[in-house]
């Protein structure tokens, strides 16, 4: 593996490891930080680290662990902060994760957000939020979407997903600003007539609610770093097919589009690609870590044939990842469900620049096929974490480390992170085992 003169990935990872602006609480904390970040960086770059890293993603597990409800953590950021801090300090993983993914109940309420049901608001208080699938873009709306996606977003999509933004659908298009000074007056008239003032007010209030969460997680990151925990989650973006399939057309909608309007679908995917790249870059801008999380949903076995995968799902995802790598960012696609029959296709990526996170894919086969290209993350099964025994957890981790961790290239986590309902003794077993058995001798 040749290192070029400007290996941007290495540069960004080195910056994460050196953390120039962080003041550590103690010399021990600084040592811990350096060791942990170096460990993870080595694994990513396919060098052999001192030990297999363990960097679990958690969402509502900290709530269960701290004896509070999901509703508590969504509505009170101080409660969330303490729960996530407790998990970080008790388990001492190689990274700390903040409570951004528990979202802000008040913000969602302020916007009358339709795409989720959440505790106290459609699901019980001790359950996770859940996505509400709908066709938020109809089958006959490809033309207007392709013609002007921003106009579609403001005047059609946002009103559908946020109840308080409904007035936007009555606004004239913003392009009406053009004719001289008259244009600006016409825009004002349009906004008055559509009743947009209330929508704009609700955005202002939602901002305030969001800022509470953002500040809380920012302080959390600072405290954790000072205590010696690198923050690994940097930016986030989406595969264009998932943007269309998850957020716009819905699962059944986009499956029918593959048959009924494949050309429109392909055009829309190309249209979304620059935005996907920009989202990845922009969302990483304020984080030290170059890792960009890309949860993947619609491309696995069963959800589409190999041909459909090659034609619709892979090309824009591939280009997205290459564009991120060019910036020195580390794409971390989480391949939810099973990609075993498409490993040969996704193997096409520069070596040592990405983390492939696998859920139900045969992870041992994945190591065979693309272990020399990507660092593999995963995949202790949720079913074992929730209903199994510590011994089963240890056995699974042993096989992971022996096979997938051979010569490096493994980061241990649950199949899609630690499930909310994981038994505490299983999380402990996983943690202790990886730290002890995962050492490279």
């Amino acid at each position, binding site marked *: 593996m040749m290192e070029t003169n400007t290996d941007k990935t290495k540069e960004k990872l080195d910056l994460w490891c050196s953390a120039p602006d962080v003041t550590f609480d103690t010399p021990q904390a600084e040592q811990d930080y350096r060791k942990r970040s170096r460990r993870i960086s080595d694994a990513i770059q396919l060098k052999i680290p001192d030990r297999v890293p363990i960097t679990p993603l958690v969402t509502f597990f900290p709530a269960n662990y701290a004896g509070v409800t999901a509703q508590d953590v969504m509505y009170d950021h101080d409660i969330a902060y303490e729960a996530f801090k407790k998990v970080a300090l008790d388990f001492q993983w190689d990274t700390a994760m903040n409570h951004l993914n528990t979202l802000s109940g008040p913000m969602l309420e302020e916007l009358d957000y339709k795409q989720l049901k959440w505790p106290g608001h459609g699901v019980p208080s001790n359950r996770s939020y859940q996505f509400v699938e709908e066709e938020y873009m109809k089958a006959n709306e490809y033309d207007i979407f392709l013609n002007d996606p921003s106009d579609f977003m403001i005047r059609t999509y946002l009103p559908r997903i946020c109840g308080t933004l409904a007035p936007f659908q009555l606004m004239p298009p913003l392009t009406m600003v053009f004719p001289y000074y008259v244009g600006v007056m016409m825009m004002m008239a349009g906004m008055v007539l559509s009743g947009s003032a209330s929508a704009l007010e609700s955005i202002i209030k939602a901002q305030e609610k969001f800022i509470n969460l953002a500040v809380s997680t920012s302080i959390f990151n600072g405290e954790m770093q000072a205590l010696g925990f690198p923050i690994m989650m940097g930016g986030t973006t989406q595969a264009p097919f998932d943007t269309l399939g998850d957020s716009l057309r819905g699962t059944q909608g986009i499956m029918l589009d*593959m048959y009924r309007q494949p050309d429109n679908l392909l055009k829309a995917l190309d249209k979304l690609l620059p935005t996907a790249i920009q989202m990845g870059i922009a969302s990483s801008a304020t984080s030290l870590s170059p890792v960009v999380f890309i949860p993947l949903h619609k491309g696995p076995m069963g*959800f589409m044939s190999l041909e459909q995968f090659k034609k619709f799902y892979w090309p824009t995802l591939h280009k997205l990842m290459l564009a991120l790598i060019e910036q020195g960012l580390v794409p971390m696609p989480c391949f939810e469900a099973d990609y075993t029959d498409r490993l040969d296709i996704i193997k096409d990526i520069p070596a040592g620049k990405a983390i492939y996170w696998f859920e139900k894919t045969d992870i041992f086969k994945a190591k065979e096929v693309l272990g020399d290209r990507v660092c593999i993350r995963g995949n202790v099964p949720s079913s074992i974490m929730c*209903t199994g025994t510590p011994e089963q957890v240890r056995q699974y981790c042993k096989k992971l480390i022996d096979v997938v961790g051979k010569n490096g290239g493994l980061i241990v986590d649950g199949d899609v992170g630690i499930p909310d309902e994981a038994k505490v003794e299983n999380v402990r077993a996983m943690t202790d085992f990886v730290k002890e058995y995962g050492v490279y001798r």
Partner: protein
Amino acid sequence: MADDLINLMADLKEQEALTIVKRRLDVGEDPLLILDDSRKAMEIVGKRFAANEYFIPELVYSGEIAKEIAELVRPKLIKGQDIKRLGKVIIGTVSGDIHDIGKNIVSFMLDIAGFEVYDIGIDQPPQSFIDKIQQTGAGVVGLSGLLTLAFDSMKVTVEAIKDAGLRDNVKIMIGGGQMNDEIRKYTGADAYGEDAMAGVTLAKKWIGIK
């Protein structure tokens, strides 16, 4: 002509299939024959799914075509006409889980295979399942759930059916993204279906036993 429709539908040729249906209805053909061809086409679709030639998009698309055909046929049906029903199946997403796409596909495949399907919807507490069993006398119950939170909901539902004295009257299958045989054991269900066709196969096997 009959073969044309069956093959066109099975090959997912939407417009051609609908054209043939319209033509057949125009010449006054018995609408039940058309529905029967639709069912035969879906059987072929099911076989191709089991053989890993078709996947979920093909189930969804063929389902849409079948629905469109049913819409065309419905006004021509004589009051009370319907295909003969094989048996009764109750299906629902368990308490706390609001996901339904997989359940809807299984519901549809069971319906097209000839079962009388009682789809009780999402986020259903154990009592809803019990009420429906008592109301319909259905012999097969399908529990659907996507998330890990469904594990305990399914376990509680199966236990509640047992406490209501109904466990021996029904066969229970579970399905969904996080389900596997381990979870099947954990919940006390009789079987776990890995995909839509497995649900149909299980229902056929169990109703046969009845």
